[in-house]
């Protein structure tokens, strides 16, 4: 038997490749931003530390790639599908909202991995990036972060009625996450009250967890981040599947 999930991911991936403008924000923009900040701060170890700016921030840019894919791309494309009646056509077939969402997710996940690899290549090649953690632990926290942010993105993707509203909702979620979570700006530069606000955003926890493991920590040292991310997975899946709108 053929799998709807695999077929949807395949077609979504093909469609993604045919829409080159999406590449810029997912693949190129975070890379440019990382190179910009790195050209200012360099990657010399901070005083009293073994790591420098790029070692410290590369995970934040990974978070930025995730938010671009899983919140921006997913929401805008699902909202447009809804408005145009594409979901209505899917609905006439024996396919569940979950298969459609997961298929879309798999397609943008592939692009996300490509974006992260670009960041790593640039980091290793230009700034002598150092990875100080356990590889498998990092793979685990990376995937947990991705799934958690994706589950959050599922909510507007499942509900936004029109392409326009999808864009607005995605932007409202995207920019605060971008600036408050340490993705575009180092988290340490934020005033305290913004730091507190940023703790409400899953991206903050994702970046802190990935950062911790990247710099040599263990994932079990971060129970709060883990719990928040896992909580968002369940909340996002529940809301999106329960309240999914076809039209």
């Amino acid at each position, binding site marked *: 038997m053929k799998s709807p999930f*695999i077929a949807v991911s395949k077609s979504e991936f093909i469609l993604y490749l*045919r829409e080159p403008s999406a590449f810029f924000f997912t693949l190129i923009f975070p890379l440019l931003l990382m190179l910009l900040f790195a050209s200012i701060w360099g990657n010399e170890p901070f005083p009293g530390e073994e790591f420098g700016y790029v070692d410290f921030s590369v995970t934040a840019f990974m978070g930025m790639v995730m938010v671009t894919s899983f919140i921006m791309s997913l929401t805008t494309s699902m909202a447009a599908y809804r408005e*145009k009646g594409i979901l209505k056509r899917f609905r006439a077939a024996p396919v569940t909202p979950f298969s459609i969402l997961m298929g879309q997710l798999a397609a943008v996940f592939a692009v996300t991995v490509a974006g992260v690899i670009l960041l790593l290549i640039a980091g290793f090649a230009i700034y002598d990036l150092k990875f100080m953690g356990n590889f498998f632990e990092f793979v685990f926290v990376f995937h947990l972060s991705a799934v958690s942010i994706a589950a959050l993105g599922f909510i507007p993707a499942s509900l936004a009625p029109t392409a326009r509203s999808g864009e607005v909702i995605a932007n409202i979620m995207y920019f605060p996450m971008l600036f408050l979570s340490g993705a575009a700006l180092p988290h340490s530069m934020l005033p305290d009250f913004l730091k507190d606000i940023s703790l409400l955003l899953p991206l903050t926890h994702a970046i802190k967890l990935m950062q911790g493991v990247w710099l040599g920590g263990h994932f079990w040292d971060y129970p709060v981040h883990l719990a928040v991310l896992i909580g968002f997975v369940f909340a996002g899946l529940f809301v999106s599947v329960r309240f999914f709108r076809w039209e």
Partner: protein
Amino acid sequence: MSENVVTVQNLIKHYKDVKAVDGISFAVKRGEIFGIVGPNGAGKTTTIECIASMRRADSGSVDVLGLDPVKDSIVLKRRIGLQQQESEIQDRLRLWEAMELFSSFYDTVLDWKALLKQLNLWEKKDSFYSALSGGQKKRFFVAMALIGDPEIVFLDEFTSGLDPQSRISIWKLVKELRDQGRTIVLSTHYMDEAEKLCDRVAIIDHGKLTALDSPSNLISMHGGHIRVQFDVGDVFDGESLSRLEGVESVLNDGNVCTLEVSASSTIVEIVKKLDAMGQGLDSFRIEAPTLEDVFLNITGREVRD
């Protein structure tokens, strides 16, 4: 008598204040072509959507192939196919890719290559969906409705906006589908189409079922009189024909005389009478009542707004 594959009882569906479907009941038999006709906004699409598991009825019961369209949605959708009036697929998907994608949703599928050939879309298989004309999109959605090898095919306004040739080729396809043992439920506001194609027709108006029977029974019950119109090539007073049995009315208009008759046997009598009167004929036309007349007589208005 074959089994019922669709049973609808007292179906009611509101949209906000509008009562789209207002207590409709009917049953569709296996292997028939069942037509739902009525003007735009009569509730045809909503009725089909409630049966095909696209919408939840406010009240009433719907049974399709022994399944509940609300509770058994996915199981039911594997066994039926729906062509919708307003839906799309992704602009930048090629037709063959869309066919492969939707094939993956079903356990048993028809060969999409044969379907595209049958619907005259084979040479478009590598085109983007966005490059299709309106008529081609329509035909493509018929192919999509058939891809899952459905037991029941729902075709909603399946020929509106199609050119006459495409209409005729889809009619042929619909009959082939029936001959393969499938059940077809279609909606149309073309009365000639329903009359030619359907085994039985349900007439819906303002969300209510107003009549349900075979086209020929509907016409003989509600179609009204046969119109006979002839021109004898000279001024003619048809009054002398009004005494013939079965002649209901006579209308003279110069050379042209129009009679309404209640039985076809009367037509023979008219011709005999004209012959006996020594009249030649320049033209002689018989206009049998159609479903269009049935609709007019039942609802008091034309089917098209």
